[in-house]
């Protein structure tokens, strides 16, 4: 069988100090194929960003991958030295961050930041790197590449900076692109432009994309498959059709019903009571049990495993089978 582009197996990522450790991500398991867009959705504190940083090897201090494996085209990434990781990062796997203006260096021109990546990873002359940078700026739809090439990030708008970020990320033709909330700081019309651009780059360069967001509408529009995370755990993983036509986890169902929809005029939004618990204080059983309106006794004591309820549809809920049969479509 063909090796998947990325295979993440049972990754547990913890914050630890001398005395204690807390899991920010636990039991993360998924595969990504070339050219596929995988959406990871979750609220703040769900561990979606830490999941992406684990793959990139960019975890903050005190954050370590305690167990599990992350294989990129068959190669284990967990435990690679910084030097080894640097060769992969930017070249094979790149990342786009949330705040486009903050994540570019303000004191270097866009051009020098673009060329830096190319020069670091490939043996090309400066002229060649510049030519490729300009091409890349053109590819991401920047109207006057020469001007932007010589500009500093603060001279550009948020949408423009995000295009530059995408150009940098794609400049070495990576196979895997991780986009962490790429449009959260941007307006809807600009968001639509950026999403189109991501879709285009997938079609053009056949990259696999992990799209991390809190916006269910965005993943519904973009992703082939979706993971719903809560409190560091995967709650549900399914294809887009499966997830939106018959979500099986109470959390997913609640989330979908709590968003004001454009095609219906509901009298009242569904309330998920309470707030996301702190990672230092996660409930013993299912992490969602404290807010779940369907919780039973064993939900509070026993951690549910991720089970496949139908081909390609995984759910971590003790009552998944029940909910699937009921067919609680949202």
């Amino acid at each position: 069988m063909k090796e998947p582009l990325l295979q993440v197996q049972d990754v547990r990522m913890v914050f630890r100090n001398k005395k204690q450790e807390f899991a920010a991500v636990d039991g993360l398991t998924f595969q990504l194929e070339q050219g596929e867009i995988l959406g990871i959705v979750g609220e703040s504190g769900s561990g979606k960003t830490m999941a992406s940083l684990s793959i990139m090897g960019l975890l903050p201090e005190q954050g370590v991958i305690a167990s599990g494996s992350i294989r990129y085209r068959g190669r284990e990434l967990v435990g690679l030295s910084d030097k080894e990781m640097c060769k992969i990062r930017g070249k094979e796997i790149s990342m786009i961050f949330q705040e486009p203006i903050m994540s570019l260096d303000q004191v270097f021109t866009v051009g020098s930041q673009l060329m830096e990546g190319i020069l670091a990873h490939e043996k090309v002359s400066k002229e060649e790197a510049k030519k490729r940078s300009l091409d890349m700026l053109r590819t991401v739809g920047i109207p006057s590449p020469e001007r932007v090439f010589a500009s500093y990030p603060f001279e550009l708008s948020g949408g423009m900076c995000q295009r530059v970020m995408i150009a940098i990320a794609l400049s070495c033709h990576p196979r895997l692109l991780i986009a962490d909330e790429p449009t959260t700081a941007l307006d809807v019309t600009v968001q639509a432009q950026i999403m189109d651009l991501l879709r285009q780059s997938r079609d053009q360069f056949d990259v696999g994309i992990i799209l991390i967001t809190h916006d269910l509408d965005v993943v519904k529009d973009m992703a082939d498959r979706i993971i719903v995370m809560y409190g560091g755990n995967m709650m549900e993983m399914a294809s887009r059709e499966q997830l939106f036509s018959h979500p099986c986890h109470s959390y997913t169902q609640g989330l979908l019903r709590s968003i004001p929809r454009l095609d219906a005029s509901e009298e009242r939004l569904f309330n998920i009571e309470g707030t996301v618990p702190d990672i230092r204080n996660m409930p013993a059983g299912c992490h969602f049990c404290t807010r779940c309106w369907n919780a039973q006794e064993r939900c509070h004591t026993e951690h549910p495993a991720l089970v496949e309820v139908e081909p390609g549809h995984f759910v971590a809920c003790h009552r998944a089978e029940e909910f699937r049969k009921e067919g609680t479509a949202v």
Partner: protein
Amino acid sequence: MSETLLEVKNLKKYFPVKHGMFSSGKGFVHAVDDISLSVEKGETFGLVGESGCGKSSLSRVILGLVPRDSGEILYKGKDVSTLDRAQRSKMRMVFQNPFASLNPKERVFDTIAEPYRIAGGYSREQIREEVLKLLDLVGLSRGYANRYPHEFSGGQRQRIGIARALAMNPEFIICDEPVSALDVSIQAQILNLLRDIQKELGLTYVFISHNLGVVKYVSDRIAVMYLGKIIEVSKAADLYANPSHPYTQALLSAIPGASEYLHIDRVLLKDDIPSPVNPPAGCRFCTRCLYAKEICSQEEPQMQPVGEGHYAACHLLRKEAEG
């Protein structure tokens, strides 16, 4: 017959900007440029637009947090600058960022009690009773009164902000992006809370948001803003079913998945929103409009009716009506 609570006529607010240390040229940000609107008693008036379109400035000018340059703001038929303190305390605001809008050094109790203390005439017990009642109303436990803001989550802080706005029995509240800093599940809680309180106390809201789904859920009528101007006003359902201005169409179609729900073609706008310092002549939207004609860059379009209670400012609509 419904009663007009707030009326704004030809309101303008320009903010001066300096162009550089040595240049003598000065420009103005056209934040609020000749805006007229009216809000009926008991309704929720939604205001949508992208960042920089002036929706927050408009709300601040209406409440007098920023002085206006020209125009009229009438509250119950009287100019707001002539209202006394008791009347002014009927107009309140809920702010966007619940992490920045509460005083971190003040206990929740004092934050909510402050309006009563300023107004005077309340005994300690009365204030205490009022504050606890407000906490009940916004769904916070009474025991939270003696805590500080940092002990609360975003959603809880926003509830505190709402309780503060509800002190002194207001009639009119401007909610400036009250849920944009919150997670989806918390957002639903706050939206429901705002709705319940409105029913219970008969409040009038101006609800500002950039999230078109949220605005549709809460609003009775919606105004769309672009670069300091209102370009379309309509009943909520009508706006989504039948957007008339090309910008409104583009805005709605930019919502992920909108083409499925709304049966409109996806319009991808080019470029960014122009600077409000030198807004384009004629129709503000002409530089990005797909249908722009010559007249659009020369003459400023006026609001015209396109349906019952539905107005839009676009030259092309008039052409259609005539031809």
